[in-house]
């Protein structure tokens, strides 16, 4: 542990570590994609990465800018149509982990990527649901990664684009054929998990040097801390080196275009 690292790197490394080798992972673009590829290049060489563009089991050399970069197809085992991707692979139950980012998340892990404000007269119109609504319900479980801020971590999202555990924490109760939902949220400050009883998001691990107060300040509700609050293990030198090489390769590749 000799290398210095940023809170962003801490977040990515921690998110990457969540992915077990051999898992099939439906990967969102951006932070989830960065974490999933870091996992593949470090402890999880046989993690299967699937992007909604239809690329099955892809091994990109550099991070894709878009969900459908050519690199994803060229390095994939095969590429299927988008209807097939959503029908056979996601809804068909072949995905262990859906790895998502979001604009807003609330205390019951509901995600909002639709809009800020009122639906009819939005203050900010966001891109929309994309694949997330069905990734969150059809994958075996869901990991979420995003940066901590009071605008991102809100008590109640303005709009539930994607189900966490609903407005009351009970949104998955008695629903047949649904995945376990969010099992962990990784930010640049900490790791959170839904409480096993009422599903309220609870900090289970603080990143090194981060205080409870910092997490609370960056969260839009009174966030709970686990009784046995842990300290997130630091990134290893190898993880940092691989991540930095990946990002440098990516930057070079995209600048060239």
């Amino acid at each position, binding site marked *: 542990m000799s290398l210095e690292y940023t809170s962003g790197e801490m977040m990515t490394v921690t998110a990457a570590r969540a992915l077990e080798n051999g898992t099939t992972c439906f990967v969102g673009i951006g932070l989830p994609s960065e974490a999933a590829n870091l996992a593949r290049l470090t402890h999880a060489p046989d993690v299967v990465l699937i992007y909604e563009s239809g690329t099955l089991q892809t091994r990109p050399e550099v991070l894709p800018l878009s969900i459908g970069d*050519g690199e994803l*197809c060229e390095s994939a085992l095969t590429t299927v149509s*988008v209807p097939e991707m959503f029908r056979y692979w996601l809804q068909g139950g072949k995905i262990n982990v859906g790895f998502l980012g979001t604009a807003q998340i609330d205390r019951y892990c509901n995600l909002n990527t639709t809009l800020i404000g009122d639906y009819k007269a939005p203050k900010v119109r966001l891109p929309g649901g*994309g694949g997330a*609504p069905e990734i969150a319900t059809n994958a075996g479980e869901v990991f979420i990664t995003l940066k901590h801020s009071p605008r991102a971590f809100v008590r109640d999202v303005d709009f*539930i684009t994607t189900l966490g555990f609903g407005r009351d924490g009970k949104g998955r109760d008695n629903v047949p054929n649904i995945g376990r939902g969010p099992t962990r949220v990784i930010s640049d400050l900490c790791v959170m998990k839904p409480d096993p009883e009422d599903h309220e998001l609870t900090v289970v691990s603080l990143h090194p040097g981060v205080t409870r107060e910092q997490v609370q300040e960056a969260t839009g509700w009174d966030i709970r801390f686990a009784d046995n609050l842990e300290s997130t293990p630091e990134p290893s030198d190898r993880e940092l080196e691989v991540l930095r090489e990946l990002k440098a390769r990516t930057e070079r590749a995209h600048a060239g275009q």
Partner: protein
Amino acid sequence: MAEILSLHDAVARYVEDGATVAMEGFTHLIPVAAGHEIIRQGRRDLTLIRMTPDLVYDQLIGAGCAKKVIFSWGGNPGVGSLHRLRDAVEKGWPHQIEILEHSHAAMACAFEAGAAGLPLAVLRGYVGSELPSVNEQIKFIECPFTGERLAAVPSVRPDVSIVHAQKADRAGNVVVEGIIGVQKEAVLAAKHSIVTVEEIVDDLDTHPNACVIPGWAIDAIAVAEKGSLPSYAHGYYPRDNRFYKEWDAISRDRDAFTRWIEDNVIHSIGRHSTDGAQSGGSVQ
């Protein structure tokens, strides 16, 4: 049976004011040249369908062609927002547009159902999402065998679908390769279809299970070299990631946007671009 037309003539014949138009291509093979031709021809009141409206729909919306957008994710992939889409939705510029939004899974199934000639698509979707509260086209049915509640959405059946592909042969048979998205479904679901291609070849030279759309299922083929830029064409040219980033600045400002459309779309016929931003000028 596909007729080989100029892009101008194909758009003039099949894209009418007020039409429902699906322009597909999932990040890859986006029919940008065709979108520019629609802007040049000044079409109005279009209902634009697309899973992932990106730059070309931002341009169509900003240029005032759209009445309504049906979509599931509207952003500049990897960069951020679509500022023209946001300006129309948030501030009504150049005029207010209607939006109808779905999830990807639902739209993909709706294209599939359209291609399959069905009126509806059934999926295990929208569970716990609030999208059904703002989109009355999302309904739920009960499985007659298991009693499970499943989502149903109307199939997509556009007046005209437009896609871009690598190549066609002289009979108008088209091969799409790489990330194939919902292009085939879009063509088969539509009343009419236009496929722009990089080139016309004597022999498609494909493998037995290639994604080939027969010429008799297409209305018009138009050559549009680099017709997908700044998107890309597998085997022909890469994505112009830089332009996607540049678009963020161009599209934030109404005047900058209008100038860009003037310079790169309206007055671009017959010109070739060097920066990859322009396209649609190299037709024929």
